[in-house]
């Protein structure tokens, strides 16, 4: 048998001022009036974002953090060389499985366009699947893939939502032109390895494993 429920009976106790409704309502009116006058005055002030909530979006934009996670871009270095080596670590780290990388050799005579010995022949990010978690950026050992400042990701068709390499590089150029390139991610300080047997045991095979993956 299920236990029956006993609902407690609650007695409402009001003070006189609460009982007559009007006093509290007048207090509330005073408060909303204060906000009203403040905001009316604020809305006539020049400049964006004078009223606490509102940004007049397409014209005024909220300044975003420099580390904002938006649309991806593939970075070039100062000499204009592609940094991505096509190792595919980002694809492996992606929880949504939305990155496809194909590794290749740089074409004959164009080696100076690439920073690494290998290149990504194609690079595809399916923005329809992407959940913008930033794991790919974290996994990238070369600092080539970033989640950039662009947050206007809507498209009219599905096709353009799948970013290819050209699009990713274009994103980079756009961000560079706007001066919104992301600073390089600072690695967090890691504690010295503990003497705990569990930690140690776990560390040693893993070090090997990741090493072997890299060799592949």
């Amino acid at each position, binding site marked *: 048998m299920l236990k029956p429920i006993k609902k407690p009976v609650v007695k409402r106790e009001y003070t006189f001022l609460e009982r007559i409704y*009007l006093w509290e*309502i007048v207090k*509330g*009116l005073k*408060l*909303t*009036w204060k*906000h*009203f006058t403040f*905001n*009316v005055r604020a*809305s006539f002030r020049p400049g964006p974002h004078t*009223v*606490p*909530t*509102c940004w*007049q979006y397409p014209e005024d934009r909220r300044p975003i953090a420099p580390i904002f996670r938006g649309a991806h871009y593939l970075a070039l270095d100062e000499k204009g060389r592609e940094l991505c080596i096509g190792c595919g670590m980002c694809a492996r780290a992606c929880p949504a499985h939305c990155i496809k990388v194909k590794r290749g050799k740089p074409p004959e005579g164009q080696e100076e366009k690439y920073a690494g010995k290998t290149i990504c022949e194609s690079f595809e990010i399916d923005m329809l699947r992407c959940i913008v978690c930033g794991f790919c950026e974290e996994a990238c050992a070369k600092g080539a893939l970033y989640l950039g400042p662009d947050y206007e990701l809507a498209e009219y068709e599905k096709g353009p939502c799948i970013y290819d390499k050209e699009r990713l590089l274009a994103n980079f150029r756009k961000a560079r032109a706007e001066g919104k390139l992301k600073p390089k991610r600072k690695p967090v300080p890691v504690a010295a390895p503990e003497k705990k047997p569990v930690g140690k045991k776990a560390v040693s095979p893993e070090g090997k494993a990741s090493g072997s993956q890299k060799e592949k």
Partner: protein
Amino acid sequence: MEDLGITVIKVVFIWTWVLLIATLMTWVERRGSAMMQDRLGPNRAGPFGLLQPVADGIKLFTKEDIVPEKAQKILFSLGPVLFALPAFSAYAVVPFGDKLVLDGKEIILQVADVNIGFLYIVALGGLAVYGMVVGGWGSNNKYSILGGLRSTAQLISYEVPFGIVLLAVVMVFGTFSLREISLAQQGTFLGFLPNWGVFKQPLGFILFMTAAYAEANRVPFDLPEAESEIVAGYHTEYGSMRLGLYLFGEYVNLYTLAALTVTLFFGAWHLPYLDMSHFLGPISYGIASFLVFFLKTAFFLWLFVWIRWTVPRFRYDQVMGLGWKALIPLSLVNLFVTALIIQLTV
């Protein structure tokens, strides 16, 4: 008896005016609420977003008119009409100014000075509920029916204190005609107060306002269309201009009620301690009285908006409880006290 032409002009004028203000009210409501809530509100259409009501109107007109398949077609189309008609015609007996003298002809700024203006307003207010009930029932939607039922119970309950308070006012001024009541509020009362209804009927005023809010279905009495409980109440299934009529009728109702409040309790077009007719010409006096009346009305319209965005909503049974347990006894007490004082002083 004035000639027909002037009456027609007055009707056309006041109709346009009320419609204009009602349209503007949608804008005031939205911008006003936005400003209270630290937002900006619609500000894209026209300067300060003033053309927003026009945009809304165009939108409502061009929407597809959808009638639910299982709705009762006749009732469904009748609902908005029944709601809007009384709302549009109620203003006929409420004055909107004193008088205008043109070519020696005296034009009273009121469509019809009926000597039972009160009864006309109460009767039309009672009719409006049919619009909601019929619309709610005809939509064949449970939420709509709930909204319709709520509106019936609420409006019928609040007609009673509304009427009783009006009776007390009638006793004070000794007439049913709204124009005469307005005229009677000139001068001072007890030597230092303006001779306004609110000073003669302070309790009556509060009760009247409460009942008026309930009649107009405004927060905190907006149960028939409480959007968080019963979706949109009686107009859940409505779209396009039918919905427009409901929304519009509501604002027209507001205007009528605000004007009524001004007429009864706030000295109509009279300024306190000041008789404008002494130092203004006949035409400018007419216009000034109209403006003063409108400004007072505008304040009460604004109060409707202001209160709406400040307080929470009642519950259905609490509204009934307030109506029957507080407002009716209080309005009766008010009536008796008024009668007693009048009996003792006259």
